[in-house]
């Protein structure tokens, strides 16, 4: 049934460019799989779906999609920093840049944490093992336990 809904969404919204970025409709997840060239699986949960994409380079991306078809959260885990421009989308990247522009910057191993009303973003790890997490607070489905976005059991 969920696959049928995905197909219908794709047909309704037509072709979409690039990635199913955070805060956008999930209809382009099929294109994500083509871009990444990896495996994909969908895990149905109560009130949301997790689309997991695993690229040959070991990038594991999970996109959390509401029952309305919106990507409200994304997690990643990879040996290299992923292309966040693709995962987060232009608007969220601008939000991130604005939050970072006022911070003192120098290279350190510390994690990067940004919290604004529009975006929550965490990036940590080291060479060969980076991990991170981003969600749009306003898009989280009602009664969704935010902690689940990084649920390793998914």
């Amino acid at each position, binding site marked *: 049934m969920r696959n049928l809904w995905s197909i219908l969404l794709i047909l309704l919204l037509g072709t979409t460019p690039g990635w199913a970025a955070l805060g956008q409709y999930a209809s382009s997840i099929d294109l994500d799989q083509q871009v990444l060239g990896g495996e994909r699986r969908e895990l149905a949960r109560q009130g949301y779906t997790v689309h997991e994409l695993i690229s040959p380079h070991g990038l594991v991306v999970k996109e959390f999609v509401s029952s309305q078809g919106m990507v409200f959260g994304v997690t990643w885990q990879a040996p290299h920093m992923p292309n966040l421009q693709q995962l987060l989308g232009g608007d969220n990247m601008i939000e991130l840049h604005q939050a970072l522009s006022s911070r003192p910057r120098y290279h350190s191993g510390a994690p990067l944490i940004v919290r604004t009303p529009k975006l929550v973003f965490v990036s940590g790890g*080291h060479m060969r093992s980076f991990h991170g997490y981003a969600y749009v607070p306003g898009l989280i489905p009602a009664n969704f336990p935010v902690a689940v976005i990084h649920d390793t059991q998914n």
Partner: protein
Amino acid sequence: MVLTVLMSCRGGPSTPYAPVYNLPVPSTVSNTVPVTVGANGIPNGVFTSVTVCTPAVYPVGQDPNIGGPPPAPVCQTINNILVDTASVGLRLVDNGEFSQVPYVADRSNHPVLECVQFADFSYVWGPVVLGSVQMAGETAAQVPMESVVPNTGIPIQVIATPYDQANGFEGGLVSVPAAPTSCLSSPLTGGLPNDVSSLQNLGINGILGVGTFLQDCGADCASSTPPNQYFVCPAGDCSAVSVPQNLQVWNPVAAFAYDNDGLMLSLPEVFPLNGSQALTGSLTFGIDTQSDNTLGGGMFALDAYGNFPQVTFTYQQPTLSYPTVLVSYMSPQNGSYIDTGSPAIYFSDAQTLGIPECLSASSEPLSFYCPPEALSGFSATVFGTNQSKYTFTWNLLNAQALLKNGNSVFNTLGGDSGVDASTDFVDLGLPFFLGRSIFVGFAGTSIEYPQGQVNTYSNGYWAF
């Protein structure tokens, strides 16, 4: 029991074979260098010096004495190099002193440039060159892989400066375009500072990455569909290129002729909660190769990600008989590790702990903790894949007060790792290293542990 004995060159740990008892060969080479902590105005920063030389043997077509013998190696000693146990490879800010150093190139003689972005969005970009690296009496003269020609140097990254981008590196020998946006997970437009300017502003001349891996990338970057890390940029147009492991930026200590199976970092204890002035410690090369580097303490084999497979964090305030926070973090999504490149212990988050974060002058939270008074009761139990475990406890003081009190080495500096219990992890930064001798065992090396058993640790290990 039949043991299969394979003929192998010394140190082929990156080739997939089954090494048997390739234990380190004892040496009497001088294997210790001093390190400073908290010097140069950088709190909790660990620094050392490195000597780099042009190699004795140049790649075909790059010998400056065309037709004649290669020039005698030209060396320079560079200080204020940050010691980083969570990255791999030597990266040096271009100080204008590099002359006639050969570069790694593809088959069309296009120089290879590398772009590496870290979790905090800082990045390094610049050409990959070949040189020998000397520290104490140790020398890395070539990559320890089969069929590598001796004395050709090891791959090192030069971090390009704005001058290099305008004029080319080494007098224009290697042109350096802007870092490709396909590498950076955040585009250059938007004004995120380039790492080189922040390094230069702080007086940091380079980064000595001595993590557990042998090269910074590994099989991925040597594959036919490499990630966006190594590039060639003909006519300023950069595209990702596949680079075999012997030409990737290499862990210098793993390429030493002797004492190359790991290292030991020994830093003094800091007793006062409000820190101390800059200190000195020592960095010793090799594990169980000399009388000064005998493996001690518990030994924690790492997972394939270079993390502890699990860390369990507990917060129990002294006035309570039960912990208010008890959570386990599993690798890799919540991978936890030790890291001299992190100035603090990063753990849990302000909301879970009920501890305030520091605020900047404009009232934006900074990711350090600023409790109004000293706190204790924090502990992390780390596990190895070999079932070893160890519990580390620490105290926390107000970070803003610490960083203004005139000291520069602190074991009570802490900060957020995430935003909630399911995104948190534990980054055991510099405070963990104080008062300990910590061993970093390289991937693929063999060591006798526990006593009487020799095992090969394919992902390396930490011991403390």
